[in-house]
Each structure stands twice: as C-alpha cells, then as structure tokens.
C-alpha cells in the first residue's frame, strides 16, 4: 500500500515537472540567451529605416530597382523597433543587429577600409549610394540630429532614437542643414 502511494506521488511529481517545463539553464546560459530580451530594467534604443525620398524622386531611381520589392510603397523598410542596448553599442552595432534579425540586405565598407576610420553604409535593402541620383545615399539621425561622422563612432545611450534615412539631395531633403546652403 505504501509503495503504491509513493508511485502515485512520483507520477504526479513528474507530470508537474513536465508541465512546468524542462528547459533548465544555468545563470550564464540564461543571461546569454536572453541578452536581447526587453525587460523593464533593460536599456533600449529605437531604430527605423525609411526611404521616403526615393518615392519622391522615383524618376531618378535605377530602373532595376523600380519595384515594391526594393522600395516599399509606404517608404518603410523597418518601422521603429526597440533593441536592447549592450555595453559600448554604436549606431552601427544596432543597425547590424536590426538588419540581421530582420533579414534585410545590407552592404558596408569596414572601418579599416575607409579613410575616415568609420564603417560606411553603402546599401540597405538593395538601395545603394547613387541609386537614386548623384546626391543620394544613406544617412542617419539620432534624436533628430544629424551627426557629422560615421555610424560606428557614435556611441549610444539609453532611450535614444536612431533613424536611417535615404536622401536624394545630400541630406537637404531630409533636414540635414549642416551639409550646405542654409548654414551660410
């Protein structure tokens, strides 16, 4: 009789265990696999990728790219998405994470190969520099400001908002005043 009760107890225990899940991890493993989980305590930044100016200058676009496959009708390649900020993350780190996680095509020149010591973004989503006229390419804005330098040199802090924007006029069509006339 005693043995039966023990067996029943054992079975109940095991079923309870199975229901609660058997994915048991060490603290290190848990930390590693949840590094990008957003919790109330985590520091985060937001990133979006847009190409609205291409829609406004569609006639200048490389004919091979004139398709919704490359230029989304609403100009949005990636809507504002929140990412966990890791120690020392730059704008480039977050961008690279975002395009990898969302399987968005990207090509860039490494910091070592570029003369200004920063990564240079050549193309995102098959839209490259000069794909839409001779003054076109990718630029970025953090909290509404256009930094004067490369994205792998910009260290981020909690709560910042990064926008990757395609420009067809050296930034003037997206409000980057520093690039030319309105300053002078």
């Amino acid at each position, binding site marked *: 009789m005693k043995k039966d009760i023990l067996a029943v107890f054992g*079975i109940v225990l095991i079923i309870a265990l*199975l229901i609660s899940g058997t994915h048991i991890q060490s603290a290190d493993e848990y930390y590693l696999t949840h590094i990008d989980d957003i919790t109330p305590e985590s520091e985060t930044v937001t990133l979006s990728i847009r190409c609205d100016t291409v829609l406004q200058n569609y006639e200048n676009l490389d004919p091979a790219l004139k398709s919704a496959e490359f230029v989304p009708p609403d100009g949005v390649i990636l809507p504002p998405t929140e990412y966990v900020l890791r120690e020392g993350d730059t704008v480039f780190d977050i961008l690279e994470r975002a395009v990898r996680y969302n*399987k968005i095509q990207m090509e860039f020149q490494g910091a070592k190969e570029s003369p*200004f010591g920063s990564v240079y973004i050549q193309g995102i989503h098959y839209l490259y520099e000069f794909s839409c006229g*001779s003054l076109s390419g990718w630029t970025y804005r953090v909290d509404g400001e256009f930094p004067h330098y490369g994205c792998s040199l910009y260290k981020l802090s909690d709560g910042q908002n990064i926008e990757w924007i395609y420009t067809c006029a050296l930034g003037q069509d997206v409000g980057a005043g520093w690039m030319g006339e309105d300053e*002078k």
Partner: protein
Amino acid sequence: MGKRLLTSLICLALIFGIIPCAAAADETNPLLIAQGIIDWKKADIGISAGDDLLCGKFSELAGSTAGDWYPVGLSRLGKADNYAEYLAVLKDRVEKRYRQSGKLSAVKATEWHRLTLAVLAAGGDPTSFGTDENGQPINLIADGTYDRGKTTSLGRQGINGWIWALITLDTKRYEIPENAYNTRDDIIDKILSSQLPDGGWALGGGVSDPDMTAMALQALAPYVGADAKVQKAADDALLCLSALQLPTGDYESWGTRNVESTDQVIIALCCLGIDPMRDARFIKNGNTLLSGVLRYRRPDGGFVHSYDYDENNPASLPDMSNSMAGEQTLLAMAALWRLQNGMRTLYDFRLENEKSDAEVVFSDADIKAVNSLPEKLTTKQYVTVTALLDKLERSADFAEKDECRRKLAAAKEQIAKIQAEIDDINAQIREKLYPFESISIRDKKTVDLIVSRYNALDDDDRVKIERWEDVIKTKTQVDGLLRALIIGIVLGTVAFLLFVLLVFRIYRKRRRKAKETERFFSQFADED
C-alpha cells in the same frame, strides 16, 4: 627703468625669435613635410621606420580608399618602396572584383579612377591589368573613362565622375578610340557646364566648394591655354578660390575649416603651373596655402583633419593625426615638390615615370620565403603569397622555378579555399541563424555544423567570422532545448514505468484477492 628692461627683453626675444628662421626654411620643404607624414603613417599602423610602408598590413588595403592614395603620394615623391607587392595584391583584387556584377562598382566610376592612379604609381599598366573571366586583359582606362557610359553614365555619382575621368584619361594622355562612348570634349563640356556663376563647383546645390573647385581645375589644367573657354573657366575658378581662402591661408568646406581643402587647392595651382608660395591671390595676411596647411601639422609628423573641436566627433580629434588628412597633404607635398623641381604635374604620369623593363630576379630570399611557408596556411599569408607568385611570373628563369610556382599556386589555392570557407560560414550565419526567436531544436544540425567549421579554422581566420557571439548564443539555446527534450523523455519514461508498476501491483493484488475468494468458496464446496 623697468619699462626699458622690458623693452630690451622683448627686443631680445624678437631677435631670438627671428634666429630660428634657418630652421623655419626647412619647415616649408615639402619633402621633409612628406617624410613626416610617411613616418607617422608607419608608426600609426605599426611598421618600423626602416621598413617599407607598402608591406603586409598596408598592402591588405590595396584597392580601397584607405590604401590607394598613399602609393600615389610615395611614388610621385620619388620614394623607393615595395610597389611590386602592392601592385600584385591590387591586381588580384581587381581580377576578383571584375568577376562580380558591376565589376569594380555598379555606380562609382571613381573606383576605376583611383585604382588607375594607384596602378600607374606602382608601375603597372592600367590598359592591361590582369585578365577578366574570359581571359581578356582588363583595361581600366576604357572601362573607367571613355567607355564607362556603355554600362553607366560617368555622371551617375555626380560631377566627381566626370572630373576624375578626365584626370585619369590624361595621366598618360591616353587616346580615345573612334567608337568610344564619350569623347574628351563630352567630358570637358560636362565639367564646364556645371560651373557655378561665381566660378566654382559643388557636389550639389549652388554654393561653391573649395575641394570640388580645386579638383575641377586639376582636371581642366592640361587644356588651359589651348582652349579659350577652358581658360576663362579656370580664371573664374581661381578668383573664386582666392575669395574663399581664409585669412589664415586655409579653407573651410561643409562648415568645417580643414586641411584637405587647402591641400586640394595647392594641387590645383601646381597642376596649372602656378607657384602657391608666390601668387598674391593666394597669400592672405602673409599666410600662404602652405602656412595654412602647416597649421594642421602635429608633433608626430601627421596632420589633423580640423581644429574645429566637435566634442561629438570621435573621427576628428584636434589632437590626433588622421589618415585622410595625412594622405591628401602627402599628395599636396608631392605636387609642390614636383613644381619646385620642374617635373611633370602630380597626375601627369608621362615620361619621367616610364620604367625600363629591367629583368626581375626571383632572389634566394624569395625562394627561401616560398620554402618556409607553413604547411597550414591562413588568410594572413594572402599578401605574401600573392606578391611572390606575381614576382615569380615576371622573373627570369631559374632552377627551382617550376617547383616554386607549383608551391605558390597551391598555397594561393589553399588560401582562396579558406577565404571561400570564411565567406560561406558568414553567409550561413546570416541566412540560417536569424531571427533568434524562430530557432528550434531542428536547427541543431545547422548550428553544430557552423560551430565545427569554425573550430576547424585557424585563429587568424576565425577573427573574420562576423557576429560569432550570435552563434554562441544560438548554440546555447539549441543545446538547452535538446537537454530539455532529453530530460522530458527520461522523466516521461520514469513516469510511465511507475505507472506500469502501479497498474501491475493493483492487478496482482486483485488477482490475489480473487484467488483467495475462490479458495474460500472452494473450501465451502469441499465441505458440501
């Protein structure tokens, strides 16, 4: 009395201040300034001062914007260096890029232009530089200038494309064939027609930019004097540049005072045969262009991009020498030195640079280098192997030539295979391991394969795997899921066995009871 003492002290200071003038004369010697930049660059990338700049670490950059301008500067200053190694790597890179769609670039003709200058500087022939996939010689001049329009307009990237096409065409005054897409006049007209009303040029918009204006002048320089239209354009451009010069001798571009704009103006004047040290239009308050440039010089011999301190811009610290500032000043010093010595202009590669076809000797040291290649190669040996093989192919015959060729070809193939493996692992990671949320136990095989391929690589090659931390993360997740599954199965099995045991015991108990009852009844039956 006190006042008089002070006055005489000031006088003394002035006298002593004037005495170092002899040393100051050296300060303006372009060769010495250039040597300072070369020494800084070597120190910056960790090459000892006695070694060539164009070696290993630096040659890795062949074909990139960060690399190609330095050999141009060195060569135009008449400096001896390891041009052959740089050229060999450059050729290998060009051949590879010619096998991709768009070749050197789908949109930027300036890739051809920069490469052409580097090839010429290193002693190569841009009209026949390696071979394409059909075995045809690669003609950087045709593909990058007069026939570029057959693929994409030279102006695709803006005025830059036209300006540099003309500079490239005129490096050796290359002739344009009858059936070419663009003529010289086409290109000159394009440049002239984009001149702004104040005589300058700009990448975009209506405000003249000193860099673009100076580069347009560098391109037009060979035609000034021969063509009235060009002459007028150049005169206007010079006035524009003179007006843009700051009282300190330097220039401002895109809102920032910087050394590179000033460098480009020096090059432009030298191309036109104007001495920047003497022309009154370019001396402000006694400050020449060169004094403008020297404001940016650092004690280590290198140059800063700008002194306008931007606390947010880590690329241009006012107290740290900068690669682009160094390379453009190097070119400006080469231009100035050539002008002062009555040599051809910076981008005019005719005659003086014509090298005699001296016989190349594959030395004992080279043979030793071949024989000491390790059994297991890494991508780190790419530059060495590529340069040795190229030298061997050009060298006179020697006893072990075939043997060396076989070894080097095998080494090159092995390195190419490793590079292909690295590229493929990177592609696999990109394609298969994202997004992380969709990773399941079914991906275990893929993840394990990537990990085992990574482990098979040498340490020097492993660093070329991108985002390895993501692979570790995925591997941990997949292994965790597998462990969870195993625990689940084991526990399930135990539960099942316990259940069977329980059922069996209940069944046995019932049987026993039934038997007892039977025996009990049968006892009654016997008594009947």
